[in-house]
């Protein structure tokens, strides 16, 4: 029943996905040496992403550290529709209070009691357990190398990593790196745009496209099948508390540095997902060619 409700809600939001935005926000990301195509993030419903390509700026001066080609600082404008901003802001504040009033104190207590190596091991265990989502996503993205890597990681970490508590696969000698991908990224690789921005209660920032991952995660994550249901919720809660204990301070830093934390989180989220999708496209055997010809394949706003 829960899954039907989730899917119904998801369908409604997908149907609304082409709604116009109501606010504009901009964030410029320039990382010379890291990203040859810095991204300009814009939340504006009235502009098309394709129109948002900013002409590359040519740098002058005597700085020899960087090669300022015309393409080096080409900026890509990504638009974020936020048609339900009042709802999103309400959910943002709800999640914010949930974090500061409940999650963070519990995580701090947990952090005080449990040493960091143990918490990292727990994190590794749950990450290993989520292998089916990543493996399936790699396969659907036609990233067979990534799928093989995930399969190898799962086997090695389960057998020699004590059920996934340790991560020998990431060691220098074996060097099978994590494939942090999901079904939302898979849709992004297929060319599906974000849709609009949405903040789910408890789950946090998302989009209709990335919300597919919530449903996929439910069905493909073994913890979802823990019986009885409250035991499963307990396990998930513990996973969240453990994960939070390893990230205390990150959210606070972002919040302190931002004039409007809501906008900062939104921009950060969209930028993060954009980079993830691009990285996944580059690995795909099928979609990376297409990616080269359509740089704005991950543009956020659907056309009305």
């Amino acid at each position, binding site marked *: 029943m829960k899954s039907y409700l989730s899917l119904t809600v998801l369908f409604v939001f997908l149907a609304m996905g082409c709604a116009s935005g109501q606010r504009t926000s901009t964030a410029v990301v320039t990382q010379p040496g890291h990203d040859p195509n810095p991204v300009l993030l814009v939340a504006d419903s009235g502009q098309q992403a394709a129109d948002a390509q900013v002409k590359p700026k040519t740098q002058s001066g005597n700085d020899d550290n960087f090669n300022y080609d015309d393409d080096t600082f080409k900026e890509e404008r990504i638009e974020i529709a936020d048609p339900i901003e009042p709802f999103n802001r309400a959910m943002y504040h709800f999640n914010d209070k949930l974090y500061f009033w409940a999650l963070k104190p519990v995580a701090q207590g947990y952090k005080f009691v449990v040493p960091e190596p143990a918490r990292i091991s727990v994190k590794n265990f749950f990450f290993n357990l989520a292998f089916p989502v990543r493996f399936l996503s790699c396969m659907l993205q036609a990233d067979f190398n990534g799928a093989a890597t995930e399969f190898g990681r799962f086997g*090695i970490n389960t*057998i*020699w*990593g*004590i059920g996934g508590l*340790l991560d*020998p696969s990431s*060691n220098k*000698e*074996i060097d099978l790196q994590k494939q942090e991908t999901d079904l939302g990224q898979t849709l992004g690789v297929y060319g599906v745009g974000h849709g609009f921005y949405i903040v789910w209660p408890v789950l946090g920032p998302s989009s209709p496209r990335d919300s597919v991952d919530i449903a996929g995660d439910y069905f493909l994550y073994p913890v979802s099948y823990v019986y009885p249901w409250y035991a499963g919720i307990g396990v998930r809660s513990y996973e969240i508390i453990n994960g939070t204990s390893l990230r205390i301070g990150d959210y606070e830093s972002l919040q302190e540095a931002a004039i409007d934390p809501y906008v900062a989180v939104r921009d950060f989220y969209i930028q993060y997902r954009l980079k993830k999708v691009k990285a996944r496209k580059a690995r795909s055997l099928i979609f990376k060619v297409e990616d080269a010809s359509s740089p704005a394949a991950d543009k956020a706003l659907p056309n009305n």
Partner: protein
Amino acid sequence: MFFAFNTVAIASGLFGSPQTVSRESGGLNTSIGYFYSEDTFKNDTDHLIRQNQVYSQVAYGAQNMWEIYVRLGVADLKISDCFNSTNVLTTTNKLDFEENWKFFGTLGAKGFYPINKIFGIGAFIQGTYHFSNYTDSVVAINGGNLYTVDLKIKNLWDVNAGMGFQLTAPLDIKLYAGPYVYYSEAKASLDTYITGLEYTERNVSIRNKSIFGGFAGADIPLLKGFHLNIEGKYADRFSAGAAVSYTY
């Protein structure tokens, strides 16, 4: 006597090379292993005991000299001719005791002293406890009556200690051999008394006297930090196993 065994001997798992495969500065190594053990136990009659063990091991070692390890695995148990009746009026539907996978745990420690770059000598001790009972049922016919009897092997544990001599061959292959002693004990009980049969319902301690054995093996470095360990033991019967370990 219907079930005649008061002595049991179960060799338990690989001992491994005397020298740890962990990094010299200290670190973990983990293994997955399989061991097939065969042994005999004797009282009025000889019985053959077989066990397959599959286990996962975590070890911490340092300085190329010492290591402690924990093992968790599953093992089956088969005792040949265990249900063989010595009474002509009683027949049973089967002869062997057989039980499938049950959990066991092992703790061990080893120390090593390198005499030179090639030779070294070490000692080890390891103990194993089987957390679950091994149970099997047999149908006995006596005087035209059918009886179903359960035999339980409970609290099975063993301890092994020995010393090993190690030779480091080219390619860092470690060859080792040495003697060991072992002791094992369990409680055996039948849940039903059948008139005319010579057996006991009470828990009977089954154990072996200290039995000497010998073991030999090789630790072969593979690629990317993995090692293959193969080992054979001989006490009353031959046992052998292999493990693949990864050094962190």
